[in-house]
């Protein structure tokens, strides 16, 4: 440490500087990668159906904008709905496990067991049961994404300090009071972490569901374009899937800041 006194810099200015310096390396690396990619494809004259150049992907993106946006909306709706259903079901299972001992002991091992089923393999079955529409995608997202929600909430509810529980016991608090006044709010930071994982998994669930059988959505576009050897369009759709993923992740993070303003913040510094 230097022996210089701590200077009281304006917070906003230093925060901006910190944000810039933390983002800048990533942005530079990304731009460099894109330039190198473009250069390699052009120099070695790589066929565009193997690796399209970034400029070709951009052209495809512009040319197919209408189709892609329509597909993005379909996929986004699946992700959003599937995510909400996953969180609701995941929270409900965690609550039941904690509130009812017997049911919890019955349910928890089954949930863990089910977690080990390769759920992607369920996609064809869901298509068989629910058809080509929205339902099989929601079902698939649910089975893929509810588990981190349940597990993180359980961990949060079960990590309440013993002496806090003793305090509650000392005034004769009921189990339900302890659950809703202590355990549930205490679990929210954990739950929000699980929710962010569920947001990412929801994107995967939607795309896998569309691969297995769909007539619309970005997953369908990717599959269709790859059979046409339109690799630029595949990449354009992939780019939009990634944007969707990032958007949902940050939506979950904003939700976290609203729901648990007291939770410790993690910085990438």
């Amino acid at each position, binding site marked *: 440490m230097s022996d210089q006194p701590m200077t009281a810099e304006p917070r906003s200015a230093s925060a901006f500087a910190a944000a810039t310096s933390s983002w800048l390396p990533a942005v530079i690396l990304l731009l460099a990668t894109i330039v190198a990619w473009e250069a390699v494809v052009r120099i070695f004259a790589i066929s565009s159906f193997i690796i399209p150049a970034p400029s070709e992907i951009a052209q495809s993106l512009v040319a197919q904008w209408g189709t892609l946006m329509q597909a993005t909306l379909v996929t986004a709706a699946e992700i959003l709905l599937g995510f909400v259903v996953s969180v609701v079901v995941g929270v409900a299972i965690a609550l039941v496990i904690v509130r009812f001992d017997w049911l919890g002991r019955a349910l928890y091992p089954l949930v863990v067991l089910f977690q080990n089923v390769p759920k992607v393999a369920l996609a064809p079955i869901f298509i068989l049961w629910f058809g080509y529409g929205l339902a099989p995608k929601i079902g698939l997202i649910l089975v893929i994404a509810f588990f981190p929600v349940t597990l993180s909430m359980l961990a949060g509810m079960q990590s309440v*300090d013993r002496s806090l529980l*003793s305090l509650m016991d000392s005034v*004769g608090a009921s189990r339900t009071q302890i659950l809703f*006044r202590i355990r549930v709010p205490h679990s*929210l930071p954990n739950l929000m972490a699980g929710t962010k994982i569920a947001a990412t998994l929801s994107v995967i669930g939607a795309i896998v569901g569309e691969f297995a059988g769909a007539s619309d959505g970005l997953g369908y576009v990717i599959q269709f374009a790859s059979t046409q050897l339109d690799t630029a369009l595949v990449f354009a759709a992939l780019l939009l899937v990634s944007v969707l993923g990032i958007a949902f992740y940050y939506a979950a993070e904003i939700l976290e800041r609203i729901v648990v303003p*007291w939770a410790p913040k993690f910085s990438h510094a």
Partner: protein
Amino acid sequence: MRIDTIRADGGKPAHIRHDDLISVKGVSVVYARQLVLQNIDLSVPKGSFVSLIGPSGCGKSTLLKVLAGLVEPTSGSVSIGGLSPVEAARKRMIGVVFQDANLLPWKNAVDNASLLLGIADRSLSRAELRARGQEMLELVGLGDSAHKRPNELSGGMRQRVAIARALALDPAVLLMDEPFGALDAITRDSMGQSLLEIWQRTGKTIVLVTHSIDEAIHLSRHVHALGIKPGRITGSIDIGLPYPRDLAVTEDPEFVRLVVQLRTMLRASHQPGDAS
């Protein structure tokens, strides 16, 4: 002068000393096949300030939990104002403070202070709870910090909220398990001083578990020393130093004499070769 008929121990003359509020008779606790407490006899006079002191593992915290109704003794009986500890707790006669303040991070100080009261008495409205919480925060010297969340409070302030939370129940007895154990020495001193003031203003009976000899003598009227393996009471001292006491009392020759006496007592009860 006529004043000499009144005992000089801090506005608590002898005539207000009633029967024992807490009476422990022959209490033993066996936990995981270990004798944690052996044949404890203890009485705590109403309105008194009693400390339990002893080395780690002597069962002093377990004894406090027995008093709070959180641990069922294996044998023996405990009476708190004629009731069992669990009954007494249901009647809000017991307030508990642990070493960790255990505040809810999502609630502000005033809501934390009224938390246990709200659970114990569901008939109280939110406004009534807030008013009671605010009143208790003022009692512990945190009237200005009602809307601060725990992460905006220092360790000492958090512990003050924990004391306010216990006092909000208006308990007959305050059971405190090393409440200042995690605080730095300076904060610890001022917390002890505040606790004395709160005690004198509220007239609560206080049972304090501590491992600080100075703290026990500075604050209490009676100190019970506990020995280890098995946990048992090995000696008791009455602290005759007059109240109100401030930190200057620690320089009093009588204080120093009591420190030596208590230290000797604790050393004698500490089994040789067990210097943990």
